[in-house]
């Protein structure tokens, strides 16, 4: 009796036979998609492969066929004083700029996460703007300020520019981690008699540490490679990308491929590390 009333609303037989097995697309669809994706991956990786390959090719011209293996472009770059100076400058700029992005970015993320203050929306927009803003605008406007203030261009103006352009990376990553952070833990700490300053060191910081380190690595890598902002703010000293940029005016040489290969390998390590820190750690909880 119960069964009868339950099925009364539905047609006697569902048209199961007529419904295509819609859960499974035809096999060629998956294959086409897979091939297309493989093509996109090739597009992403071939240029890097070419860069690395030609750094070992024994030919001044970057053209096929390959002529044989050589270390000479690496030797040339290691003997190039100007380039080594530029690397030193880049390391200096990237280190200090990264330090500043953390010192500014972590409090900014904290402020966005937990405080309400007048102008918060404008502050958020302004500090996050450089992510989507072409670097040239940051570069030009800070160049204009330096001009108005009578400040001479130097590696320090480059540092200010990089910190301003890259602080958004630290802010977004740390903010995202803070949003996932359980505020009850801070309350528990206060409840157990520990004041706000120590609570930050003992509870908050350990929980956002990997996001800070991850975004710091990322911002270091990006600062090391930065060019649109640097272009307008550097004085007589060159950073490495600026040095490469200026040699490109004169023509391309495999020496650039050699230094490029090294930059890419070092960046790869740092980026993999930073991505691991930014993703994995927080999810383990």
């Amino acid at each position: 009796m119960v069964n009868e009333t339950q099925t009364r609303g539905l047609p006697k037989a569902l048209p199961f036979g007529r419904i295509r097995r819609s859960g499974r697309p035809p096999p060629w669809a998956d294959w086409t998609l897979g091939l297309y994706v493989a093509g996109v991956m090739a597009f992403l990786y071939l240029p890097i492969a070419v860069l690395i390959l030609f750094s070992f090719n024994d030919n001044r011209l970057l053209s096929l066929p390959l002529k044989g293996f050589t270390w000479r472009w690496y030797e040339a770059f290691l003997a190039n004083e100007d380039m080594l100076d530029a690397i030193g400058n880049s390391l200096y700029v990237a280190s200090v700029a990264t330090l500043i992005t953390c010192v500014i970015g972590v409090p900014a993320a904290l402020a966005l996460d937990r405080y309400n203050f007048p102008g918060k929306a404008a502050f958020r927009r302004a500090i996050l703007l450089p992510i989507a803003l072409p670097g040239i605008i940051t570069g030009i406007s800070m160049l204009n300020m330096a001009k108005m203030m009578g400040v001479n261009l130097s590696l320090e103006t480059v540092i200010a520019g990089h910190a301003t352009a890259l602080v958004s990376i630290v802010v977004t990553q740390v903010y995202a981690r803070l949003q996932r952070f359980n505020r009850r833990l801070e309350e528990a700490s206060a409840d157990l008699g520990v004041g706000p300053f120590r609570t930050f060191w003992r509870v908050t910081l350990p929980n956002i540490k990997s996001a800070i380190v991850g975004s710091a690595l990322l911002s270091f890598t990006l600062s090391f490679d930065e060019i649109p902002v640097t272009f307008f703010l550097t004085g007589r000293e060159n950073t490495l990308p600026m040095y490469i940029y200026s040699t490109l005016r004169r023509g391309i040489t495999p020496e650039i491929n050699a230094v490029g290969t090294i930059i890419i390998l070092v960046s790869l390590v740092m980026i993999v590390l930073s991505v691991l820190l930014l993703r994995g750690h927080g999810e383990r909880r």
Partner: protein
Amino acid sequence: MSDIIEVLGVTKTFPGGVVAVDDVTLRVREGEFVTLLGPSGCGKTTTLRMIAGFETPDRGRIALAGADVTDLPPYRRPVNTVFQDYALFPNLNVADNVGYGLDVAGYSRADARRRVGEALELVGLSDKARNRPNKLSGGQRQRVALARALVREPKVLLLDEPLSALDAKLRESMQVELKHLHDQLGLTFVLVTHDQTEALVMSDRIVVMNAGRIEQEGSPGSLYDQPTSPYVANFLGASNILPGRVRDCAAGMVSVDLDGASLRAPGNSLRAGEEILICIRPERADLHGQEPAASEEVNLLECRVREHLFHGNSLRVALECGGVSFFVDVQLKEAVGKGAIPLPGEVAWVALHPANVILFPQGAAP
């Protein structure tokens, strides 16, 4: 005994204009187990958080052990909290969680270690001291949170829905355990919960809250037997709340009209013709298949049975009396098998002692 917690005329409004707590005054005696009970959004958690110091009241004062703490931050207040999600530090092991903050409180390391050991023993987790919280079961985390809150010997223990994350079986045994712990330590407990069973089982006193105000407070028994509003009657235990009209009122007895049927109940100062709400506890009514002998003392309602709902230890019988629907619970211990329970469609008689009929003036509608 003196009042260890005094919440005096406290109001808290959240950004956006939501009045979470509205002029609440609450006093808790030393050693008492008080439960703040109500649905989410009634202000019970905000009240607790103001006692702990996580929220600052807009108006009113809060005193702990005779000292005004309204302007003290949480880390200067002699209370400790067991959080709803336990809030155990994921980067510290169990012993370090329990010992957290003891150094700041000025304990020597040896002293702190001894106290942590004692606290873990109290909750029966001595063997888990080196484990990380994420390696523990829900019940074990609960105990760690308890040990961590007790190790500092607070004057008051605050519990914010501490059992809500546990499954039903574990929750029941933890209720008993918490009650025993309270008796053993003689400490003041303030519990926040939306679970009426929890409140009834553990508390010395229940404070029912509604929309930021205290609706009624009293012992579990008095709240259950003498709710002063349909809201409380509904929240504690099951209730039939039925609309009725006063016929007459004399000598402490009221006669009410329930869609044609007549009920008598104790009551005063009600006017004839006044609309009222009638509250009947489903387990306080007796169900009969044959018309029982008429009695002056007992209300008798002739009904028709609509359906049976089997609850295991009891049977809920849905009834219709005139145009009114309600239900009564029959304990199955004696009734089952005797054929005494009328079947759906049959006529039944409900006998109801006037003392078990509670009347609320319509002004007290929920």
